[in-house]
């Protein structure tokens, strides 16, 4: 088991290197640092000196890949690729445009993100699974039909409308909870209720419909027919046999997103003013803060890969047929 985990984690290394190369190419080869400086400085203040100063402040005044002028090993290490891209592996992300340490910012901001994303994930999963189970129980009836119709309609509405509508209905019309903002400790609860509801409703349509399909596929299997043939009640068949077996693909399927919960949700956070990583990313995109976006791309990919590794491990845990070698 341990050997398998280690081997599986080692597979991730080439992918991490690939991601690093992609971010490097995207941020430094598509446009030169000079272009970025011109963009950031604005058309009016662009002078060669200003560009040089901008680059020097951020450490972009080195050669990209090979520094012929530097002595010894610094030929390689005193380059943008080494200083900006390879350093990402040590979780050193450099500084944002406002001169704050990005790694520190990420450490403080991931907790509000998690406080929002984790309840959305858990409540959403429970709601989707139970609704899907209900539709599967009443399959091929009016309830099932309208359930699917409801899912398709909900799927067809943009997330933006869920947020705007939820904010309007609950916070303005009914004056139940604050529209936006955040506070530490238990006070956070009041601010989180609304975004959690919005997040759950927004993901409901697609999720419930997918799980309904999984349940129906499971119910078409032979052992279910056997269970019915020996005279078990439909309720027992559904809850004792189908639910257990259908939960395996559902649960192993969602493992991959668990690490990414730290990233939070981009739009929900910025709409509701929650100081998490999602709103941090949006702010950075809007301020064209390349260092922060680069850091978030890298972090997001690392978390996703961790999720992939966890998924593989969870398969081996729940399904004895998957062997470790």
């Amino acid at each position, binding site marked *: 088991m341990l050997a398998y985990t280690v081997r599986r984690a080692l597979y991730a290394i080439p992918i991490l290197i690939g991601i690093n190369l992609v971010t490097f190419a995207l941020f430094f080869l598509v446009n030169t640092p000079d272009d970025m400086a011109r963009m950031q400085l604005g058309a009016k203040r662009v002078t060669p000196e200003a560009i040089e100063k901008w680059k020097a402040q951020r450490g972009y005044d080195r050669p990209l890949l090979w520094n012929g002028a530097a002595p010894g090993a610094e030929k390689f290490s005193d380059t943008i690729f080494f200083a900006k891209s390879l350093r990402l592996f040590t979780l050193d992300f450099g500084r944002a445009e406002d001169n704050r340490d990005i790694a520190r910012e990420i450490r403080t901001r991931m907790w509000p993100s998690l406080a929002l994303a984790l309840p959305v994930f858990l409540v959403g999963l429970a709601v989707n699974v139970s609704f899907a189970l209900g539709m599967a129980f009443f399959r091929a009836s009016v309830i099932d039909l309208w359930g699917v119709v409801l899912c398709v309609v909900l799927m*067809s*509405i943009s997330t933006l409308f869920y947020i705007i509508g939820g904010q309007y209905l609950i916070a303005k019309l009914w004056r139940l909870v604050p529209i936006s903002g955040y506070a530490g400790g238990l006070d956070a609860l009041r601010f989180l209720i609304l975004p959690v509801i919005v997040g759950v409703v927004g993901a409901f349509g697609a999720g419930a419909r997918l799980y309904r399909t999984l349940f129906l596929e499971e119910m078409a299997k032979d052992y279910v027919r056997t269970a019915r043939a020996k005279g078990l009640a439909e309720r027992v068949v559904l809850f004792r046999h189908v639910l257990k077996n259908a939960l395996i693909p559902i649960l192993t399927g969602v493992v991959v997103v668990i690490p990414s919960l730290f990233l939070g949700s981009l739009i929900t956070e910025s709409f509701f003013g929650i100081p998490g990583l999602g709103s941090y990313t949006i702010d950075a995109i809007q301020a064209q803060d390349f260092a922060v976006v680069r850091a978030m791309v890298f972090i997001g*990919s690392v978390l996703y890969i961790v999720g992939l590794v966890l998924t593989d491990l969870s398969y081996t845990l729940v399904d004895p047929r998957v062997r470790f070698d």
Partner: protein
Amino acid sequence: MLFLLPSDVLVWLLVIAVAVFALYCSRRPHLAAPWARVFRNRAAMAAAVFLCAYLLVGLLDSVHYRPRLPVAAPNAPVVYAVGVRSLLDRLLTPLRTQLEKTYSAPLATHLFQKELVRAPGGGTWRAFPRLRYGGAHLEVVSARGRDLAQRALGGAGAALLLWLLAVAAARRTLLRRWPEAAWGAAGAALGALLVVAGVVAALATGYHVLGTDRVGNDVLYQALKSIRTSLVIGTLTTLVLLPLGVGAGIAAGYFKRRVDDVVQYVYTTLSSIPAVLLIAASVLMVQVYVDTHPALFPTSAQRADFRLLSLCAILGGVGWTSLARLVRGEALKLSELDYVQAAQAFGVSHARIVTRHILPNVAHIVVITLVLEFSSLVLAEAVLSYIGVGVDPSTISFGTMINAARLEMARDPMVWWSLGAAFIFMLALVLAANLFADAVRDGFDPRVRVGAVREAAG
């Protein structure tokens, strides 16, 4: 003077490609049969009518030209305006040019905000002034209800007449050619659509049917213009996604070994980066490029068009991995089949095997994926434009409409019509696309077919 933007050219090329594909399908029973199943689905036929209506608006908006400027002297050379317009702009000239001062509610006769009004006898007070165009033909405001009813009835009547003509024409042609398709649902959808369109068009001659926004632009005009942006993003993305996904997938599945390793590595790496972040980073880079190369884009329309196209390219470049994975799996299976093995044994070239045996047999996966992808792309456009990494801010799209209107719900009394219009237009488009995609998936999915056979057998 005809002035096609690059995206116009690509849109029309795509239309031609789809027409050719339709012809190709109709000649081959194994591809025509799934489509026949799709068209027997009532929801799909109704959805197809809506999609066709959207397509019509989008295509009208994809023929751009530069209008001729009024001639200064009798013998002066002909001069064309710098800005481009589309045929849709031409059709909607009243909507485009009749600007109010600021917000006005749907079908209103008065402005939404109070202004200083000069009284006839001297002195001023604050009141809601009459609109410049909306309901300006009314002498007394109280006649509005009657006027609205008259126009609406007239519009609905004309629409019904048109519908009867269309149904009669369809009975003689379409119905005879393909009797088994669900024409009833299509006819009902067409009737509903025509009546709504007729009423709206009749009302739009004298009012702002969906109100005006903060700077007085007609909201109906903006919603109609947004359609093209959505369609372009939903369809042109295919041009990048399709060759990458199918090419890489078939290469990996057919040639296996080294090629497979490389392709798998590339798509695992790309799909590991969260899509939104990768798209955002790429769009930021395009923004830098556009900003630092102003000489390449002489007009703002060209700049906006370049950003639209690059967004499509980015979405396609990020989205091809899932298609490649599906195609690879299918190609792996196909390359083990007897007839492919036999072809290899006879010494048929790889290129020929791929085009004759592999490609036609992955077509169903490609069709399903592309149709399913469309609605998610339309939704993605709104979100991306909202967070500022979508289309150019000057391009009218659902995302930019929502972005401009997001604070209006907080006003008191609130301004709901911009968001409402974007909501209705998007919902109709995405819902129709989803319903159609479901039918396509059911029609093309071989597993469904097996199930149907089993059911039929007892």
